[in-house]
């Protein structure tokens, strides 16, 4: 059976997901809007998921894909709670600009 990895190679996938992950980091650091930062986190999660699937195929093992499945479940839960928190923050601060959230100041 033909397999994608024979033609593309695992290293290309590694570079792709690394870059995707870095883009996620960049987004988190670059933006002030909490929702966009949230999306960046999703990008990072997806980068990891992608790599997991790649390695799952590479090792011919289903465990990697099961892990991606769980990771998606966790991501879904995270998004639900995170957005709820954002809503609460929005109500209290009239905005979700994280530069205005400085209660952690020592």
């Amino acid at each position, binding site marked *: 059976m033909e397999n994608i990895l024979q033609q593309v190679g695992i290293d290309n996938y590694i570079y792709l997901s690394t870059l*995707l992950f870095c*883009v996620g980091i960049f987004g988190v650091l670059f933006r002030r809007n909490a929702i966009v930062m949230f999306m960046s986190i999703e990008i990072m999660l997806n980068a990891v998921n992608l790599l997991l699937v790649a390695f799952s195929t590479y090792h011919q093992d289903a465990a990697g894909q099961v892990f991606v*499945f769980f990771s998606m479940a966790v*991501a*879904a839960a995270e998004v*639900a709670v995170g957005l709820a928190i954002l809503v609460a923050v929005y109500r209290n601060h009239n905005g979700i*600009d994280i530069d205005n959230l400085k209660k952690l100041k020592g």
Partner: protein
Amino acid sequence: MLTLFYILSAITLGTAFLTILSKNPIHSAIYLVLCFFSIAGHYLMFNAQFLFIVHIIVYSGAIMILMLFTIMLMNLNKADEKNKPILSRIAAVVAFCLVALVLLATFIKSQPVINEYKVSGQDFQSIKVLGQVLLNNYMVPFEFASVLLLVSMIGAVLLSKKEHINN
């Protein structure tokens, strides 16, 4: 196949960048949906049909819709976000480059460990096999995941209702 991979990769990275760089959160969300679809395309290329479906349902279907709803609820669909101070933006760019450099260097350095890929021909990722693995080997985590989702649902409801409780 390689061409397809490059196209998909370009779309993935490009939409990811656009997600981050676009001023309007709605646009960000839409670019992100595109990005997710391209990742789903990658899954399809791996022949991981189950994940392809789940990914589209969960991310593009559920998560992104939730985000869009939130954005619209908060009335954020306008580009009124002030930019970060220039110093922070430079710092962000530097950090991005640095992380990319370190991670890529790490993987390139460990290249020799990656062997040539061999196909065993074994079926490991059809929905049938995955279902068996999931419900045999990973039964308990599976149940826990359901509990987690339940808890997060309750938590989300509680968090967004909190103000009314206080009043």
